[in-house]
């Protein structure tokens, strides 16, 4: 069934919270993942998502439709999460927490145990390395590589020029590779 986003948006702007619910429901998982990447804690991410959705509801009449609704929501999630991170001074993303969050996702839907076991170690290393990156870098990587947003939309979310996003991505890749090499080195030392 084709979703009438314009219609839902109009109704939501008029104060219909059911329409707002239908509008944000398909974006919830993406928004939560972004919040989780930024704040690095499941509880904090849930609170950040709720704050972001509430802020989105309040700011909806000012949404002019110049960007996609999802991009606009991402921008609010980014602002709220970064604010929370500044206040809470949260630790970098914990790979164990992400595992737990993924397990919840598995319970709720599709799950391939074989693939999960094979990739678990790699995933853990990558998550660990990503969690050690500065917040702007890991957000850029998350939006670009995981959520598949084009560079232009990543720039809209982070409210920076396109060139800055490209620089972020380049530096983030270098930093991630460096972290992965370091983790690999540590592993070899132990082994």
């Amino acid at each position: 069934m084709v979703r009438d986003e314009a219609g839902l948006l109009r109704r939501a702007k008029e104060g219909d919270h059911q329409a707002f619910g239908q509008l944000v429901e398909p974006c919830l998982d993406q928004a939560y993942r972004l919040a989780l990447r930024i704040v690095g804690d499941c509880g904090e991410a849930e609170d950040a998502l709720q704050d972001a959705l509430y802020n989105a509801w309040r700011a909806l009449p000012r949404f002019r439709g110049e960007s996609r609704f999802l991009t606009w929501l991402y921008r609010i999630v980014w602002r709220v999460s970064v604010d929370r991170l500044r206040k809470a001074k949260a630790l970098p993303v914990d790979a164990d927490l992400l595992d737990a969050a993924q397990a919840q996702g598995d319970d709720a839907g599709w799950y391939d145990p074989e693939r999960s076991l094979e990739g678990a170690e790699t995933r853990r290393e990558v998550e660990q390395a990503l969690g050690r990156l500065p917040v702007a870098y890991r957000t850029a990587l998350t939006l670009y590589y995981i959520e598949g947003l084009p560079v232009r939309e990543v720039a809209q979310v982070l409210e920076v020029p396109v060139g800055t996003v490209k620089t972020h991505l380049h530096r983030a890749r270098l930093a991630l590779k460096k972290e992965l090499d370091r983790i690999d080195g540590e592993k070899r030392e132990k082994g």
Partner: protein
Amino acid sequence: MRSPRAGRVTWWCRIADRTGVTSERPGLSDSGETAGLLAWLVRRHVERCERCRAERARWEGVVAALKESRRIKAPYGTLERVFARIAAEREAEAAQALRPMLPGAVQREGLSGGWLAGLSLASSWAGAFLGASPWLLGFGERVVALTHAAAAMWSKRLWEEVLVLQHLGEALPAAAQPYFQALWWSAVGCSAAMALLVIAAEYCGSSKS
């Protein structure tokens, strides 16, 4: 995830790393990062260079591992909790709008109720006193009868008001309930006072006769 060691790093390899061609999103033609003739040349190099191919394969592994996190779902009931917050905020806003109005209403109701109750009480005692004095026979009965009628009328009217208020109160937001309850109990108190006055007037009338 081990870094590739094979092959010599050339100028083109460094350009490929720098322009992000070795770390393009798998299966993506529009990365927004790399376009034009330089990108074409770099891609051509990556296809031929063992080191760059290995670097790209490694990056594809990293991206695949990152994409595993796409299974993470938002906690159940997030949206419901947001709706509850929106509803609570709407209630609070409605209560905020009522707040300046309510204390005034309570004051007015309290004043009129108290004034009526006091007047009735004073009339009743005056009637009883006058009715009891031997040199004012007849006048006391009239005052008692008048008080009785007035109190009965006001008591009935007040009770109707109480019922109307109760219905109104059910429609009020939660934050306005304490104000409403104060108003309601004041009305109930006045009704009870009126009922007592009726009983007192009845008693005075019967004892006189």
